[in-house]
């Protein structure tokens, strides 16, 4: 948690969960992904011919035709590749990035949290599982994007540069790459608009939506509700720090 005044942790009302780095990465990511989905749809609908699905004519026309849709799609793909590479490098090189990456690694506790949570859903448990910095579903979101980016960028490159792909990876035929690309896109779009959007926007606790992606701040109530173990950890660090500095609470 950044910009946390550990001395005042007990009185802090909001916490900065994501710094500017991460927020910019996220904005660039979702902008490019949404552009990719929107421009990918008319191309997908046109597979098998212009009349394959009736909506394809109207949707395609809305983009100025297939050529325009393809051009925008490739530009958005370039942006996605850039932000993915940046994130990868950042996760390796920067200390902060490495720390976040370690937090996002799946652990055994995530499995128990899943079970615990489902039991809570159906009244078999009275309390929710306690999550640390990232809950299991947030980790799922992160690794799903990882998986999606690898597949989409990999197969997308085959579709973009078929001649080069034929020389370098002849076993991955154009049709196979197209099949995987389209199917994974469908999965990603469904996961994004149903699962991720529910968790961050449509969830009754957050409806009509959170602006966490914009300002990066999270309230104490949300911390207590969604990431109590992290708050606990911060409390301990704050007290430890206070102890280390021999600061009495309330004193500046």
């Amino acid at each position: 948690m950044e910009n946390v005044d550990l001395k005042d942790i007990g009185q802090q009302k909001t916490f900065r969960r994501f710094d500017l780095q991460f927020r910019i990465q996220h904005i660039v990511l979702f902008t490019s992904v949404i552009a990719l989905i929107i421009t990918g749809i008319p191309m997908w609908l046109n597979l098998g011919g212009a009349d394959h699905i009736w909506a394809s004519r109207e949707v395609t026309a809305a983009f100025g035709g297939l050529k325009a849709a393809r051009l925008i799609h490739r530009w958005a793909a370039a942006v996605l590749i850039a932000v993915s590479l940046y994130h990868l490098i950042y996760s390796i090189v920067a200390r902060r990035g490495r720390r976040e990456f370690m937090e996002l690694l799946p652990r055994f506790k995530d499995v128990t949290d899943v079970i615990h949570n489902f039991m809570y859903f159906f009244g078999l448990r009275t309390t929710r599982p306690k999550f640390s910095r990232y809950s299991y579903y947030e980790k799922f979101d992160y690794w799903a994007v990882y998986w999606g980016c690898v597949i989409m960028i990999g197969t997308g490159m085959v579709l973009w540069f078929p001649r080069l792909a034929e020389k370098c990876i002849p076993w991955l035929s154009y049709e196979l790459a197209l099949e995987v690309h389209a199917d994974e896109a469908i999965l990603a779009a469904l996961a994004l608009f149903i699962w991720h959007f529910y968790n961050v926007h449509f969830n009754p606790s957050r409806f009509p939506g959170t602006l966490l992606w914009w300002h990066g701040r999270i309230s104490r109530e949300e911390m207590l509700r969604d990431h109590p173990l992290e708050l606990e950890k911060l409390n301990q660090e704050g007290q430890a720090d206070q102890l280390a500095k021999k600061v009495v609470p309330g004193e500046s």
Partner: protein
Amino acid sequence: MLLGDHDDGSRASPVHRIPLFDEDKQQVNPQVDEEPLPFSTRTTCGDCHSYDIISGGWHFDSAQSNVPAGRRGEPWVMVDRQTRTQIPISNRAWPGVFPPQQAGLTPWLFLRKFGTHVPGGNYGEITDQDDPKYVLRWMISGALPINCLVCHDAAADQDKSEFALQVFQQNYRWAATGSCPFAAVAGDASTLPDTYDPLMGGFSDNPAIKPPVVTYDKTVFDAKGMVFFDIVRQPPARNCYFCHSTQDLEKAGPYKEWTRDEDVHLLAGLTCVDCHRNGLDHMITRGTVDPKQPDLQAKTLTCEGCHLGDPAADSPIAAMGGRLGAPKAAHQGLPPIHFDKLSCTACHSGNWPGKKATLVRTSRIHHLGLHGKHNPEEPLPHIAAPVFALAEDGKITPQKLIWPAYWAYAQGGKVTIIPPEAVKEIAGKILEGNLNEARVDDWNSITREQISQTLTLLAAAGGSGTVSAADGDKAGEPVYVSGGKIYALDEKGALVEKDDDAAEAIAQPYSWPLAHDVRPAAQSLGATGCEDCHSTESAFFYGEVAVDTPVKTEQAALLPMYKLQQIPEPQLNITVNRFFKWLIIITMVVLILHIIGDLFSRLLRRSQ
């Protein structure tokens, strides 16, 4: 060389104001003859043009032996609903067709079946090679010489349909005359008995017997008894279309036909003969170069020759391309392997591939264009197109395809067709039983029981010598071939389906390349992207061809195009497709359950 065999360099068409001659080289002049005879193109046109050289041309030589067959082409098709047959017939050595004589077609019978769309010559002039029982018929009808006018008369009132109808009536001697606007032929040689003597006449009291009589418009003949013909060296496309039209049954009918687009070459101002040329020998170029008969001149008139140029050509202009104004294709972004694997026509010709190949009709197979006798409702025989299959040159080519259906005797891996008339004689009652039932896929269905009974009777007839192979060999095992399968009787007399040996391939579909109509470049495969072909939604690889058969089956079989292209089954694509389908379903089910669970728990807690 005769006068008309070569020009002096003038590009103008010589005015053909010429005398007419009958088959005995006597001038026909109705101004002086009270009962003028029909004129013969052999003697009339042959007066100035070497008929014997011309008659060796591609349109007229299929009856001859030792003629190089070239690439597969459109066959004639012998069809009979009662016997459930559709047999591709040709005397050319194309694998998968049957010679006319094997199907019981002598020259006379060949003309009876297919003469409406024959330009004359060929079978129409080998009268002395026919079965003796037709000698008298030939004498009555006369020979059918090459009708030069069907191609070279540019007059709009040169009536090819009338020519065809005259042939249909066996008025061979009168056919060319009847097609001209200045002559009318009444009568029907087919009504004449074998004993009719054309010189003596007779039977004038019998209204059922109508000897052909020609009446000329005398005003057309000038003072010298000559007639004007609008003869051109290069026939207009409409002349070719009488025999070379294709109708897509998906766009057939009065409300859809107008949606069909013309070939882009004709729209650009070219005619058929700008590409399909020949010299005096009338060995017309067929648009491709036969590797067995390389003709460098013909090569310049192929798709590549005109559009791309031939780098190996001696002439620099031939190496350039752009002939006749042909746009030079850049094929930007297209990997060169496509030129090795595909013909030009694969991307540029025929209908845009659909999920299933559709039925088409052609002039020669379905006898199109006959005024008063055309049948727009009759799709049989069934020709499917476009079918993307491997051609003889190893390239994927769009083709027309027919599934042969026939009765035959099989022996030693070879089959001998049993003519439909012979089958009807032997097993007609068995096969006519259900002819009035509703058609299935346009066929009059045949049951396995009917096949079994017919084969049993054919076996008995073959053993008794009632029916034998055309060449006199002992008849073999009777079989019925249909829909790629061979039906035969086992030792116990039960019906079995036998595999078609790949080497013998007697049940394989017969296909031949199509090249028209050529679509504009903007409507070629690949114009909207690689996915036009390279996707699991693409009809190019995954489109299907219905296995056409009259045999009643529970479910119509469909053959995917990739099998005809001899491409291994794309199992990996199918497996991946299934994997992702289940991945999406399972993942979303779990995620949605999670969402539902969350909502449910909130509801539960709120109510407590």
